[in-house]
């Protein structure tokens, strides 16, 4: 009763929790969320420094001294992890470059020019945006077999030229950041259309290109379903396929320290790049989307 009286006595404005209490709750919850996100990676890093015996003895929150040993056994393993990283880097980089370049070009075609099929093509691209690659995987796989492109990187890289999602982002960005008067000015100065695109439009699109390059790179780096269907040669495998191989190996014989090292090795590049560019990624994405 006393509590009720007290709350009734308060002015209406102070109903609910006071701001300081709300802030405190927010910080507590956020801290729990942060721990929930990072705990797994903490265990991963700790366990990468421990050998099989220590790992079998149970978890301790402190690192041990076997990081180098685990790294050496990773290098000596029959799964070519370093080669796999090189392969992943090659595929993801080429995918990111081709995908963003040609998506910008496609967006520019729709944004800057006026032609009969424009509306139709734009609507069409929006409609196919959501179709996942899994549902066409069968036809894609058979096409790859027919073209004799099994164990080749072409089917992993070239299809990214037609990336509706990247296209859509570029198109949105152009609407608010690419004044057509600039293009007109370039024309008056006698610049050819292709040159205008490369030397005027691309530089103006840099922020959007950077964001999309990162996401396309990460998407390709992490991609598992399609590459696993196409790449069978161990030397050509990308990291996700190698990890799947690792998973299907005989677990009883395994050096667990090495397994943790392999997992850390596969995710470290993306994590490092992300932490270096995180402000830019999260902030840039939010800014781009608000302007969108």
């Amino acid at each position, binding site marked *: 009763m006393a509590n009720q009286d007290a709350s009734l006595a308060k002015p*209406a404005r102070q109903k609910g*929790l006071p701001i300081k209490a*709300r*802030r405190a709750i*927010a910080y507590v919850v956020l801290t729990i*969320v*942060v721990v929930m996100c990072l705990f*797994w990676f903490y*265990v991963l890093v700790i366990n990468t420094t421990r050998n099989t015996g220590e790992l079998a003895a*149970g*978890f301790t929150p402190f690192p041990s001294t076997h990081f180098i040993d685990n790294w050496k056994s990773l290098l000596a393993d029959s799964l070519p992890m370093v080669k796999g990283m090189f392969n992943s880097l090659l595929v993801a980089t080429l995918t990111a470059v081709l995908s963003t370049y*040609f998506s910008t*070009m496609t967006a520019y075609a729709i944004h800057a*020019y006026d*032609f009969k*099929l424009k509306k139709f093509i734009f609507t069409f*691209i*929006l409609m*196919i*945006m*959501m*179709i996942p690659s*899994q*549902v*066409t*995987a069968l*036809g*894609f796989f*058979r*096409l790859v077999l027919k073209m004799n492109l099994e164990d080749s990187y072409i089917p992993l890289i070239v*299809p990214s030229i*037609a990336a509706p999602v*990247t*296209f859509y*982002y570029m*198109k*949105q960005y152009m609407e608010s950041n690419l004044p*057509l008067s600039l293009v007109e000015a370039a024309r008056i100065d006698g610049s050819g*259309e292709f040159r205008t695109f490369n030397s005027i439009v691309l530089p103006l699109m840099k922020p959007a290109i950077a964001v*999309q390059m990162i*996401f396309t790179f*990460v998407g390709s780096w*992490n*991609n*598992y*379903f399609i590459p696993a*269907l196409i790449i069978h040669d161990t030397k050509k495998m990308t*990291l*996700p396929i190698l*990890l799947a191989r690792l*998973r*299907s190996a005989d677990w009883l014989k395994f050096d667990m320290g090495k397994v943790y090292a392999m*997992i850390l090795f596969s995710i470290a590049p*993306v994590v490092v790049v*992300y932490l270096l560019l995180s402000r830019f990624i999260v902030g840039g*994405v*939010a800014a781009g*989307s*608000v302007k*969108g």
Partner: protein
Amino acid sequence: MSDQNNGKPAEQAQASALMQGKSGASAPDGKAAARKNKKAVSYNRWGYYFLIPFIVVYLIFSFIPLCTTIYNSFFINYLARMKQVGPTFDGLGRYVKLLQDGDIFVYLKNTMIMWIMGFVPQILLSLLLGAWFSDPQLRLKFQNFFKTVIYLPNLIMAAAFGMLFFALFADSGPINSILVSLGIFKEPFKFLANVWSARWLIAFMNFLMWFGNTTILLMAGMLGIDPSLFEAAQVDGATSSQIFRMITLPLLRPILLYVVITSLIGGLQMFDVPQILTNGSGAPMNSTKTLVMFLNEYLKNKNYGMAGAVSVLMFIVTAILSIIIFRINSRTNK
């Protein structure tokens, strides 16, 4: 949820376009001016030239595969003990067989159960965090740090994440070691041998990988709401939870719907995590086998007829969901 990875910024752009009622399809300014210009006609040819790479690549690597996928679904065509059977035309026979066998319903149910178990906590937490991040009264510090951390799991390779959780939650792994030493369990719990713990694990991983993305998406939407609405409500003495229920949520509806459907499309594609975690077996007793794992099995066994039928059914479902999104977009754009 694997292939959504590179879709986020555009999703967000789309989401904020939803909020602001901007048109994605609007023609650029200067269109009318360009039309009047005679010279422009010759420039406009370049629109087609610039579209060539996209169209050629799309036709070869997406459109033809889609057609052959559908075509293959009408044929009996598989390898049995190294012997090729078919291809023989079967009409809709593969679909009938698929639906009569009924396995597809089991895997659809698994997929949906794990999606819901991951999505419900995901949307709740994202709404809460989004509201806090976008609340000007609260003025949370370290926002960039929090956003960076919650977004991080989304960029982690799902295959590596699955492998990591497999190692962590193994019978003799560190999680069991911690739980036993804390006295929560007397002996190691077999997480991957129990139907519901295995499903919860997969759902939790999906939740972990996607709630940061959803938070940023919803936050962008919340920041797009006219701040004077909040101020007016505060002056009228509304509490923050009232403001959230009466103003934020209703205005966020188009984005929420968008998030639900894109997540559902992503959920239907659930593959990497359960595939790696269970080594493709969908253990225990196929209870974690998803639709795409089912499709993957047919592809690996070169049973093209059945793989085609599964793909086409999935295509139809995704297409229906996509049309809903397309409708939401164009309705709010008007």
